[in-house]
């Protein structure tokens, strides 16, 4: 069984079928992509797997454990991290606090530690802060550590979000349009960072993207989604030449 295994997932919103017979196998260390026209259901699939919705049918397993019915934070604790298309950062918190927050489930000092500032809490907070610093350094955002996140330039915010997701120590990392709103320079940087974390940390990455060139360059295997169904799955070369993929995008604005 694969690290992340999705079998025949189907989901209805009321009477509307959003996703149909979706399947996915991600092995450890794979770099996979999910493309498709707007409204195809890509973010819905992310939301289904990460626990925001419970799929009407189908099975999802992470490392053998079923994710169906689990709450999002439980799924995250099991090792499924994600970023968001529209950067859900916490307006009043600093960069360092963002990354530390993702270590929440690993903190064991409990309420007594929180209330009475026990040694255990101090040590764990110290360790968490150091780990967070390391992650920020890895994504190249540690110079912003004590700044409130809203004062950062957009590209830096994206990197903070990435560091935050990494702090979960995920086995699989879902990236929802990581390049949205970026200029070419920021794009190049983020691609390098993703490549670097993929190589150094060996985690599996599954990303949604609109920019075809980005997906083609980065991903090993790509799924194409249209109207909630997978219409093609294969290597970048296979996808590039696939009739059905071209059809789905016909008339839409793409750069191959």
């Amino acid at each position: 069984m694969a690290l992340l295994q999705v079998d025949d997932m189907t989901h209805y919103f009321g009477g509307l079928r959003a996703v149909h017979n979706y399947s996915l196998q991600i092995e450890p260390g794979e770099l996979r992509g999910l493309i498709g026209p707007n409204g195809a259901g890509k973010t819905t699939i992310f939301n289904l797997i990460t626990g925001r919705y419970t799929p009407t049918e189908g099975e999802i397993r992470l490392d053998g454990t079923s994710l169906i019915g689990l709450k999002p934070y439980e799924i995250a604790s099991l090792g499924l991290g994600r970023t968001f298309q529209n950067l859900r950062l916490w307006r009043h918190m600093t960069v360092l606090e963002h990354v530390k927050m993702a270590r929440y489930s690993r903190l064991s000092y409990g309420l007594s530690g929180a209330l009475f500032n026990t040694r255990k809490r101090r040590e764990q907070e110290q360790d968490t802060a150091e780990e967070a610093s390391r992650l920020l350094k890895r994504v190249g955002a540690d110079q912003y550590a004590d700044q409130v996140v809203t004062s950062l330039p957009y590209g830096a915010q994206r990197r903070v979000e990435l560091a935050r997701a990494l702090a979960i120590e995920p086995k699989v990392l879902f990236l929802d349009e990581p390049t949205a709103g970026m200029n070419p320079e920021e794009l190049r940087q983020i691609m390098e960072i993703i490549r670097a974390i993929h190589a150094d940390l060996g985690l599996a990455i599954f990303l949604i993207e609109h920019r075809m060139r980005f997906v083609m360059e980065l991903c090993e295997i790509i799924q194409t989604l249209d109207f909630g169904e997978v219409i093609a799955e294969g290597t970048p070369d296979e996808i590039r030449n696939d009739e059905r993929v071209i059809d789905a995008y016909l008339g839409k604005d793409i750069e191959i």
Partner: protein
Amino acid sequence: MAVASQTLTTRWSSLRAWLARAWHPYRPVPLLGWLAAILVAVVIERAIGAPVARALGMSRVPALFGFIIMLKKPELLFSALLYVSLIYLLPIALVARFTVRPANRIAGELIGYSLTASFLIHLSVLYAALFLWSGENDYRELVAKLAMIAVITTLSLNVVNGYMGEFSCSHPGFMALGAYAASVITILLFVDDNLLGEALLPPELGPFMFPISLIIGGVVAAAGALMVAIPSFRTRGDYLAIISLAFMFIVKSLFENLEVFGGPRGLANQPDYASLTTIFLWTIASIWVINNFVRSTMGKALNAVRDGEMAADAMTVNTRRTKMTAFLFAAFWAGVAGGLLAHVIRYINPDTFGIRRLAEVLAMVYLGGLNAVAGSIVGGVGFVIMSEALRPLEILKWIMIPVLLILLMIFRPTGLIAFREFEPEKFLRPKVESNDQGKHPPQPVQAVGDRP
């Protein structure tokens, strides 16, 4: 015209420059220096305050730095200001200015020795000053007690309205539960009461049972909080506001109907266990514990839930448990504050904790500042003092205070000090002399998390 405004601008900047120069010698004064200076001023007042006041034409020492005289006897205002300058401002200025070196040295040595020792010394000086100041007359003692209770109340509501970002109207209900629970226990055990019968325990045990009764009051309040939290946390939105409002009325009506607790006539004759010292200790405890909580990652999770619940979910935060814990924790402290209040004013009835109380506690939180421990301290103390200062206006006080609050809402809706971290350990450090290069006190390693 342009020339006139230019003269104004230059006058303003030269004023500011003068102020900066005048303040300059005070910049290196550490907190310890200020506290010591205040203590000296208070001692001076206790020693020669009354004769000085009489010499200035006042029959007594001004109770509240002249704030009350301002409105009650405006003809004495000048005398009061003179008094404040002579007895407070002058000694404080002199002592602070001329003890800079020893103050910094001692502060440095204390920190070097142990952070806890430093805290204890600073708190002791503060306590001594407060104790002496309020010993002047009963009124001062009452104001000091009410101000400290207000700090506890404001902090506890800030956890919900500020840090958690909800709008809760149930705090008067929590205070009522704590007040009644604590009162019933102390009256039952230590007072011969018409309603609750003879005292059951010897009075010597009283001061020891008091903290326990307060804690029980807090726990009862937290249990009540479950009644609000369970229905409303399943849903997002304004439901907490509405359900908490209903809860407040239910609690009020509950006590109106419980004849065993006095019904609409309420409970009186609470024993006089709420001394200044007791309340001071509880207040410091509440500040310490609540500050610890909101600075921890567990506490920051509350902010994460407020500012982006979906993201918090995705980052392993158990959002439901976070909200529940914080809400019950806040309710506990509201209950403690209620218990303390009951034993200060020594009479409570269901009306004590109604809409008027709700307006007051909301005012204190939003005045002081959301999501800031320092803000709550300022808001609680500030509101009580303002309330006392406006007392001579009698009924018009309750037109002035709402008007001020409305103006505040329009011009500074998040309050005076908002979204700031309270790091008391930073205040304990000696301050560097501004011309001294390269002589910096040791900085803590990380941003959050104090270390001894």
